[in-house]
């Protein structure tokens, strides 16, 4: 992804957030639907604008209008950042290396899992060097541009940092 947003992305982001704030203001769905249609109409009548200067000025005016009319406590979904149950279960997410510290009697309760786990750990040790090499090759000189990890490029290679992904905790721990 490039470092800047396109005009289309900016307009669409403005539209979505103004719809969300409109939803926070108009509590009942029928009223919200009415005003949402009006807002869509306002966006649609200018969507064919070819002059970029004028379009950017309209976008700026739209952002100002959004800022003036935004809701001080917009509705956030509970699991989204800032919501009421966001990160609520982080404290129950135990990292997978704790499994190594289990007592042998506890490990004996799950023999097939721990047998396979040894094989996976051997595989991880084998592929680690190649993962690091791939990441070092692909990262640009002044640091990575985003958190997205690249896929495996070569035949017979595993994707870099696959172990962290495979052993990540569940979204909602038990």
């Amino acid at each position, binding site marked *: 992804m490039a470092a800047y947003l396109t005009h289309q992305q900016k307009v669409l982001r403005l539209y979505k957030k103004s719809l969300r704030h*409109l*939803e*926070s*203001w*108009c*509590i*009942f*769905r*029928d*009223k919200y639907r*009415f*005003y949402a249609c009006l807002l869509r109409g306002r966006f649609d009548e200018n969507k064919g604008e070819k002059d970029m200067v004028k379009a950017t000025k309209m976008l700026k005016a739209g952002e100002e209008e959004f800022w003036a*009319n935004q809701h*001080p*406590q917009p*509705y*956030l979904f*509970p*699991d989204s950042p800032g919501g*009421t*149950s*966001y*990160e*609520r*279960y*982080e*404290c*129950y*997410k135990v990292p997978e290396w704790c499994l190594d510290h289990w007592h042998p009697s506890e490990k004996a309760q799950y023999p097939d899992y721990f047998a396979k786990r040894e094989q996976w750990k051997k595989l991880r040790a084998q592929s680690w060097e190649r993962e690091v090499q791939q990441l070092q090759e692909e990262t640009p000189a002044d640091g990575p541009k985003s958190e997205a990890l690249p896929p495996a490029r070569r035949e017979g290679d595993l994707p870099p940092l696959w172990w962290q992904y495979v052993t990540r905790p569940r979204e909602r*721990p*038990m």
Partner: protein
Amino acid sequence: MYMTPMMLSSSLVLTLNILLYPLLTALDPTPKKPQWASTHVKTAVSTAFFISLIPLMMFLDQGTESIMINWHWMNTSTFDINISFKFDHYSLIFTPIALFVSWSILEFASWYMHSDPYMNRFFKYLLLFLVAMIVLVTANNMFQLFIGWEGVGIMSFLLIGWWYGRSDANTAALQAVLYNRVGDIGLILSMAWMATNMNSWEIQQIFFLSKDFNMTLPLLGLILAATGKSAQFGLHPWLPSAMEGPTPVSALLHSSTMVVAGIFLLIRLHPLMENNQLALTTCLCLGALTTLFTATCALTQNDIKKIVAFSTSSQLGLMMVTIGLNQPQLAFLHICTHAFFKAMLFLCSGSIIHSLNDEQDIRKMGGLHKLMPFTSSCLTIGSLALTGTPFLAGFFSKDAIIEALNTSHLNAWALALTLIATSFTAVYSFRVVFFVTMGTPRFLPLSPINENNPAVINPIKRLAWGSIIAGLIITSNFLPLKSPVMTMPFMLKLAALFVSIIGLLSAMELAAMTSKQFKTTPTLPLHNFSNMLGFFPSTIHRLMPKLNLTLGQLMATQLLDQSWLEKSGPKGIASMQIKMSTHASDPQQGMIKTYLTIFLLTSTLAILLMLL
């Protein structure tokens, strides 16, 4: 003849021991069964409740109160600290009520926290909180009260930050601790004053000696303590933030029991305050300001738990007003009735939240009247009790308070604020009921909502019974210690009911407007003021740390090096000298010839005058 005090004391000691037993067994390292929470803790609390009814009946029948000194803990030749419990009118009534409410909440929590892996620890924390609260309520000396005070503060911190992976929860827990700490400064000030001036921390001795002293300073300290613990204006933001904790925590701590600890302190030490007009006026005005401010904030909130939290804060302000009116027993009555319906409001909202998959915003609830009829009717009953509907629980305490306020010859401004806050109570209660229960659903089609589980229904049912009849039972069995004003003008008598009805009617009108076609955003700037909580947290939470950090930076960098080594020594002296010399040398401009000429002229003039 002597059976009664012995039975009283033994049943109260038994109550405390029953509550302590699960905590002591929890020290055992063998892990507990998952049902330990329900089987051991909940039955302990319910058994303790039934046993604590025995002393209550004895108090009703014969008026026995008792003070038990259990252990001479730290005794010097001049100062005694004992473990002593005082079971008087206040603690004998409060203990069964607190145990009843806790029993219901624990039963509810066994459903609400069912999927939590550390449910046993949760119940242990709640039980430890309950023990600390009872220690606070039954304390006969300031030291034991302080132990209970700090205990409930710490348990509040641990329970608010129960989901410690969430940064907001950690912030809220820290906020609670810091605001309570500011209040603790007041309490420690009062304790120190009492220790140095009255040489004792026993309540009886303090009451006896208080006539000889000017008690203004310790009373202001106690009011500061109550401001911190009971979320009065100035130290109030921690209470809405405390809603980050699970709903049983909000129901137990931040509505019924912990937040009333500050008011309870003032009630317990009320004889000190009776004659001190400054303290009474401070309580009155602070309480009136709190109740109006927090009721205003509650009007536009959208999170159901925050609305109930602000309503708690508003009722605490009302209790503070009552103390300012010199009516501690009315404040105590309001504490008792408030515990029932506020806990029930929280349990109903918890049931709704859990059924809607953790949805807390009232903008996405609706139509629950048909889907959860029992819960929504109990929500309505709780809201009606809160607004002071005649003959429900809240009426007996709230109406009595407003009558006392109307007929007292005190601050009319406080009266006006309290009446406005009472109408706001009706407004936001109606708002909650309107958005949550009426209309059509605005949430996603989810797993079917049901009310099958008796672990949810029975606690709410018990608390609903309490909300309806508790006011009647308490007022008919316990005579008021001060006779209320018996006659007053008709309008004053009906003032509370009148303003509540006005509030309700205007709320219904405004609610009907929400679905009509008006402008989407509000036209008045007041909405922002109310929604952003009066901008109090936004300013104070940034201003205070900035001031303190700037002060710290100045002290660290400039205090020693710049001030003491430079400015008070060489550079300071140098700058003073330079100033003085510039002032002195400015007039001198080096015009020698002019000076000589003037000198000659004036000396010639002087000689001529002398010769003449």
